[in-house]
């Protein structure tokens, strides 16, 4: 392996030493001019012993350090136990460097960390200083088995199939195929069939179309807009220019069940704009017409993937979705002016009842929230 022992080994040419035979600009030379094709592996460098291998005093020092780390671990575990049994779960104290903090959390954490790190670092130090430090060479063997062994395996399969006679008896072969194909169906049907109901019209309706009765039917009843979470109806006169209200249809917040499911579709944001702020185009006019006196109501469920669009910039009349920053322009019927959403936020047509409270004039006319295949 180690043919040349000179550290600054030159390659000793075995053939002619006429250096002109080798020209760099001719590219790579393969074993030409009597030189080997590539360098040879010089073999493992000589092992240099560690201090702890040759100096017993150093070894003793390492031993003490390792034992010291293990002792730290013992102290850590005791700290944990003391912390656990002396303090209540809600005790809080001031600790230097970290400030006020849950006492048990800190003592338990620090104790456990010390207990683990003491062992970990101790064992690592031990393995580096005192355990044998010389590398060992193990040889590798080709993974592949011999050709005969592979052929024997293949034979085994072939013989197995022959033994079963499946190829000679088509009746068995095809009926088994059919049976296996069908038997997966019961399992699949059970799972898929029982996981959940079909969507039906559920994506198209919301609590603005009415709350479901015992039969799940919804009848529109021009509900008032109530504040979420105060559950209080609002008068048109409460909505000043620049203010924002988060509302639900009246009755929703009194439900016991399915509150979140209803809110997920019916959350609406209400703003008042100066009627002159609406854009002077079809979109702006429609937005104003569906509102009341500059007050407009829009679905809060983002048409991208459904986050609540909660950030209203008064000066620009932009609604911003916090999830991926889709930006909707209220003056243009909440058309998307930036970001990954495509469709505008659906508008809820509103008006006032005879007491001056804001009510829905009609339910949402399209599904709210993210797009799906069969919506048009």
């Amino acid at each position: 392996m180690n043919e040349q022992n000179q550290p600054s080994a030159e390659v000793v040419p075995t053939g002619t030493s006429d250096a002109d035979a080798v020209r760099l600009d001719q590219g790579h030379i393969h074993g030409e001019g009597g030189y080997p094709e590539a360098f040879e592996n010089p073999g493992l460098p000589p092992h240099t012993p560690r201090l702890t291998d040759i100096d017993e005093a150093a070894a003793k020092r390492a031993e003490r350090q390792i034992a010291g780390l293990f002792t730290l671990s013992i102290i850590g575990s005791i700290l944990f136990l003391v912390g656990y049994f002396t303090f209540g779960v809600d005790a809080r104290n001031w600790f230097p460097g970290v400030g006020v903090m849950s006492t048990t959390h800190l003592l338990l954490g620090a104790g456990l960390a010390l207990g683990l790190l003491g062992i970990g670092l101790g064992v690592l130090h031990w393995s580096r200083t005192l355990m044998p430090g010389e590398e060992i060479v193990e040889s590798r063997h080709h993974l592949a088995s011999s050709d005969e062994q592979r052929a024997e395996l293949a034979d085994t399969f072939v013989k197995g199939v022959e033994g079963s006679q499946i190829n000679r008896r088509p009746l068995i072969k095809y009926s088994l195929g059919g049976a296996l194909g069908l038997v997966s169906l019961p399992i699949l049907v059970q799972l898929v069939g029982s996981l959940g109901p079909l969507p039906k019209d559920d994506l198209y309706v919301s609590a603005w179309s009415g709350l479901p009765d015992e039969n799940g039917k919804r009848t529109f009843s021009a509900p008032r807009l109530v504040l979420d979470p105060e559950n209080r109806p609002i008068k048109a006169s409460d909505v000043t220019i620049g203010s924002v209200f988060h509302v639900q249809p009246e009755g929703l917040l009194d439900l016991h069940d399915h509150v979140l499911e209803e809110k997920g579709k019916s959350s609406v944001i209400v703003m008042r704009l100066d009627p002159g702020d609406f854009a002077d185009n079809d979109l702006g006019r429609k937005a104003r017409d569906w509102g009341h006196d500059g007050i407009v109501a829009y679905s809060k469920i983002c048409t991208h993937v459904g986050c609540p669009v909660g950030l209203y910039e008064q000066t620009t009349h932009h609604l911003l979705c916090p999830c991926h920053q889709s930006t909707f322009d209220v003056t243009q019927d909440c058309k998307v002016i930036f970001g990954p959403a495509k469709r505008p936020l659906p508008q809820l047509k509103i008006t006032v009842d005879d007491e001056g409270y804001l009510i829905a004039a009609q339910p949402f006319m399209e599904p709210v929230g993210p797009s799906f295949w069969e919506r048009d």
Partner: protein
Amino acid sequence: MSTTASTPRPADRLREADQPAPRQVDGLTAWIDDRTGAAPGIKYLMKKVFPDHWSFMIGEVALFSMLIALLTGVFLTFWFDPSMAHTVYNGSYVPLQGVEMSRAYASALDISFDIKGGLLIRQLHHWAALLFIVSLNVHMFRVFFTGAFRKPRELNWVLGTVLSLLAIVEGFAGYSLPDDLLSGTGLRAMQGFTITTPVIGSYLVYFIFGGTFPGTDIMPRLYSVHILLIPALLLGLAIAHVVLVMVHKHTQYPGPGKTEKNVVGYPVLPIYAAKQTGFFFTVFGILTLISTFFTINAIWVHGPYDPNATTAGAQPDWYMGFADGALRLLPGWLELDLGSFTLSLNVMLGALVLLPLVFIIQGAYPFLEAWVTGDKREHHLLDRPRNAPVRTGLGAAALTAYGILMFTTSNDIMAIKLHLSINDITRTYQVLIFVLPPLVFWAVKRICISLQRADREKVLHGRETSRLMQSAEGGFSELHEPLNEYDRWHYVSYEPTYPLLEGETGSDTPGVAGSGRKVSKARAAFSRFYFQDSINPVTPAELEAAHHDHETHEVIEASAEPREQIEAAEKH
């Protein structure tokens, strides 16, 4: 020994003291071997040699943090209640007292505030999960950049790919369990992008959620996925992964004495076992320290999930970042209106296509590379990344794309912190995602090649250190100190490579494109792309030539090193 025992003589009694005392461990090994016959196998395993390198520890960190997540996760199951039933919170966290919430959220709060040490376990669980996914990815890149995925380890690369996908799903399922505002917002987004699946989207989400979002079914379902289904798969596949490592024997970095036919390192007993044990405790200890002092996922801050509530700067755990980033970059016009149907490519591409695509490409890479290089041999010596410039460049480009998507996730935060317009930032990213990866590929490939050149330079002309001596001596005779054979080996111990040529059927290098099938035009082109610029190691003949060159020219013009010549040679 037994023959003397059968014919007892008086002196035997005296000799007994000389015979090795029966050791306790003999009894133990005998007991086990009587029942399993495993003595030789276990001995073989205990003497197995593992090479030692810091970069081999990253995979261990992944394994250990997974085990820690499993352990702490089992603790959490004793107190966590995956139920969407309503309850009114009356635990000891004052700001939320009297608030209506789900049992799931209330029990996660109880773990944090009313169960001694519960918060520590929760924090350990989440930090271990994060470290698991980080280290898994870094490990994967170590394997990639060193070419450790080549034959015979392609299978293990595929296993690793599946593990990393499962880890992400597991993490997402866990993140959704506490049912606080952030976890509900994450679920809402999941519902929102699943529903965009063409044709079956709305059916799919009604099946997954058992009806209208959020419903009460999703929590128990996620729970059994999170604590049963995926952990079982993770554990099983991780074990298979490690067993395959042992079957293959670990790869090693090239170096003096290391060959394709050996493994140089430390035996399991005592060194490797001790190092692993020490390392496990150390990782566990460090995670505990982090969990003590740094709060992750403070579920009490934002309150329970409410579809009508918003937080600015909502962000998922980091490993979902790239998909979230892609959702931010895809423009809205990609949502196509197909008459009475809607195809939301703006959502689908990022949420439903990107993730599987990334994992398919990742899983297929070893096979693609083998096809391009025509290399069918086993490889147990790793590549230094510079010696595979195209692979290293491709990896760097992939990392760049991933990084851009991750950065995009914080475009809102960045806009606020840097006072930039979010529109400008997003548009910049939209451009960068196309421009930067190819640029990085090109730059990294060039850097690799110049590093290879520098290596050649060192071999041909020795160490540069002696340049300092040049001025001290005033002469030019000792410009460079030649490398000794051990050092030189570091720079020359890789294989020369050549592109496959079109129409070629075999090669004189065993195993290289020797399948007998003709190399197609496309394959030859890929192979040229892969290899054409790579620089091959110095050969003994070249070294000799350089020496010759050295002697004749150096004294005349010491500074004019034959770099141009090398370059000319390399261009071949």
